[in-house]
């Protein structure tokens, strides 16, 4: 074990060593007049950029802001713009600066590194190697730093950015039983952390169940009588984004329950359509079906709750 640790530490040291001796190439220069140079040409740019001065990026009183004292203004994010803002010989293209978004010419890792330079402490903790990082999602694919308010920070508009890649989820929220995302009462980020997470599906809490307990804390327990799949993973029975069946269940009871319960008698025998309201009106099919008796399907703290009936 010790030797494995030594190898890991040595490898990390090597990486750090290479970092420390890295020598930068000759770098381009900054513009002569900073943001004034940029605004001169881009004041009426489409899409508009001047909303930046109403959002945190344009706040001159925050020392960390690009427009804080002795900060690099537009070039803090777009890189040195001396060549871009300078005179360009006739017929030659204007040298590019760092631009943002998947369609921009700047490589996405370079774009995102620029954002992380300031937002390391906000989003850098789990960004590297996260599924969005590995799929080359650019920060600017979701965020807009030039508008007065970022649509990602509003539960009513945030989901639209997510649907751009996760179209299947948009339709989930239109199912008859779904969490209230389409109503604007829940945001994707209430459960997921798009900047990366140590947990599966970019969940914001440690496990699926821990995430659900944020709003459904009464199910946490631990209870005297637990229903094993409930304690382990809510998604064994529920589709968290929405479902055709009530209570966001993946399948309709009693078939859902009968997938795992086959004791002799009513759990094991088939309950067919002869048990509907116009037939024998079976308690196993109608109204609360299995739950009419096994009420405490999420677990019971009653000393007689073994069968989840109390």
């Amino acid at each position, binding site marked *: 074990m010790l030797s494995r640790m030594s190898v890991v530490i040595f490898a990390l040291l090597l990486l750090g060593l290479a970092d420390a001796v890295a020598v930068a190439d000759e770098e381009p220069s900054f513009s002569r007049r900073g*943001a*004034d140079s940029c605004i001169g040409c881009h004041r009426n740019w489409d899409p508009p950029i001047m909303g930046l001065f109403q959002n945190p990026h344009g706040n001159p009183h925050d020392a960390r802001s690009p427009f804080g004292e002795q900060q*690099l203004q537009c070039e803090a994010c777009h890189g040195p713009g001396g060549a871009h803002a300078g005179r360009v010989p006739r017929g030659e293209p204007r040298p590019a600066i760092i631009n943002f978004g998947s369609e921009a010419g700047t490589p996405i890792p370079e774009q995102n590194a620029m954002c992380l330079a300031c937002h390391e402490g906000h989003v850098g903790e789990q960004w590297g190697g996260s599924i969005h990082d590995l799929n080359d999602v650019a920060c600017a694919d979701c965020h807009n730093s030039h508008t007065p308010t970022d649509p990602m920070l509003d539960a009513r508009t945030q989901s639209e950015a997510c649907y751009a890649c996760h179209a299947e989820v948009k339709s989930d929220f239109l199912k008859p039983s779904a969490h209230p995302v389409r109503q604007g009462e829940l945001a994707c980020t209430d459960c997921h952390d798009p900047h990366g997470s140590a947990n599966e599906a970019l969940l914001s809490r440690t496990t699926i169940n821990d995430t659900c307990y944020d709003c459904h804390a009464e199910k*946490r327990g631990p209870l005297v009588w637990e229903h094993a799949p409930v304690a382990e993973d809510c998604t064994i029975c529920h589709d968290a984004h929405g479902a055709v069946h009530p209570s966001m269940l993946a399948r309709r009871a009693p078939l859902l329950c009968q*997938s795992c319960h*086959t004791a002799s008698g009513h759990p094991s025998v088939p309950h067919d359509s002869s048990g509907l309201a116009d037939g024998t009106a079976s308690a196993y099919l109608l109204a609360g079906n299995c739950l009419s008796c096994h009420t405490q399907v999420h677990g019971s*703290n009653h*000393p*007689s709750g073994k069968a989840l009936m109390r």
Partner: protein
Amino acid sequence: MNENRILKIMVASLLGAGTVASPVLAQELPDFEQWSCRFCPFPEQGVEGNVDAEALHVSDDSARFGDYTGLDEEGAYLNAGADMLYRAGEGYAVGFEARNLGLDSRELALRAGRQGSWIVDLSWDELPRRLDDSVQTPYSGLGTSRLALPSSWIRGNFTSGFTALETTLRDFELGWDRETLGLGIEFVQSERLRYEIDWNQQTKEGRGLTWGSFLGTAADLVKPLDYQTDQVDAALVYAGANWNVRLGYFGSFFSNNDTSLTWDNPFNGPDLGRLAMAPDNRYQQVQLAGAYRFTTWDTTLNASYAQGRMEQSDALLQYTINPAIAAQALPVESFEGEADTMAMNLRLTTRPTDRLRLSTEYRYNERDNTSGQYDWAIVQADSFQSVSFVNPAYSFENRDISLQGDYRFSRILDAAAGWGQKVRERDFQNVERTEEDSYWGRIRVRPFTAMSLSLQAANASRDASEYLQVPSIGPGAAQNPLLRKYNLTDRERDSFQVQADLVPGDRGSVSLRYERAQDDYEDSPVGLVATDYDQLSADASLQLWREIVATVFYSRENYDSDMIGAGSFAVPNTAQPNWEGRTRDRHDVQGLALTWPGLREGKLDLRADWTRADTTGDITVANMLGAAGTPFPTLRSKLTGVELMADYHLNPRWSLNLGYRWEKFSADDWAKDGVGEATIDNVLTFGAETLDYDVNVFLLGFRYNFIKEEEE
């Protein structure tokens, strides 16, 4: 290289002196005297933002339409909102946001502070749940822990014997209000160090749906909801140039004002039944997480560790409330439920060349349930003394490892592949260990700048260790030995996904996506044996003319599942497979949105949305395998919505808003259709219906923008 330099490099390499974080800092800094930013329109002191007010008229009562929105009753509503910011000098500011102030879904947030120094947030949020307004019950005491039948109630062996039912039924509503008060503080001590603390208190009050049963009879009941949950998230974050560390604490403290629910038995038999309500619980967790980014090979190392404990120790109810059954002593008066949790992950991502990216991750989490285990003298459904049984204390251990690589052959083509393994270990369950290996590959092609195509395929194979029989209360409760529970057994999963994106020009874009996933539980004689999921979605956006933009969305999803049953009334059940259950669910969505901003010289913005969502569910239960089976009536739901909005900007300060919304929902559900309170012989129900609605909402409102005179 002298010793000092070597030492410095070693220290620098350990501390991460090399950085990708601020590439611009490598340049010579500019002459800030010349960077006066005189064209920068920094906001001045004063108020900015807007307030709005509106009158709404809702055409019909509907719990379902009002669920989450608060628009559940016919009539007029006055509503208001605000998004305001007062900027004081030196960067101090106070912000106020409000939404739906006149509705039960209101939200308020007040934020004050100085960006980069400290910020305090105070918030209030209401979420209305309107579950059902079609229900009736003879019980009184709804919303309390004691449900009583009227003195005129006449009991019977079956619901047909409830001769006083008709005269005692009363309408009521199921639902609750969730209210959340939040307070957050962020304090930035320095450019690198900041502290965050968020506290919120959620209350949930109202009436929930539950059920109560005796032997062979049951009743729909109202569960009292009087919950309070306090949550605290606190963190200390230190961010270096290319590394960061976060030390956090999370606490959740849940309390329930109702420990039990007691109800009168409407049927012949024991007089009273009593259910346990959710006990108070608490969970506390400490977390340590961090990341280090190396310049070399664009390498990132992430790690996190979290240790927590969930606990509850509420006093227990007695075995039964039925005085006819001799009370036995409980093994403990209160159950000391306790489970320790631990989670960690380690992830290394590197890009040795511009073309190649590699990533590996190890993730572990466990739930170690250390709660006491006792021999409980169970009284089944307040009806008879059953045999005693020891409660299992479920523990889990999950270990995931993955490795993936992505190689970019050219700007046109890149390929990725990966391997993953998931190991699950469990106590007290039929399978102690499952191990799932998965492989996937993906190709992305971008033949033109305007087009990209992605193909991904995956296979996952889960192997379970020996399937064990867990103890049960007597042979009658034993599971059929052929059963394999779907979350514990062997499974073969194949999936693929194809996606095409086309951006032919500045005027529009088209995206198509198809996904299919098939699960085969090939070694399950009884239980879930197969599922088949596929989804096709398409969306397109097109600038039709001038500023008019149309967006179209289409989605079709199928989810099929097949299970095999082995039914028998013999004890124990050792029947061979003798029936089959098939489910075919389908969900179709279509949407069209049109926006036309800037009409009439920029004064008028128009928006129109149309959405349609249809679901069907076809279930067939075949009594003998291979037989045609009797299909159930199709489960259906249809949701149609139209929304029209017009914003007319009278002047830079005032806007007039006109809106119309129509939404219609209808459903066919055999679990509810035709099921009255006494339809089922042995269950007294609420007679709930499918909550169809057809609601029109008209809106007339205005918005006032706070702007400075020179902007007017």
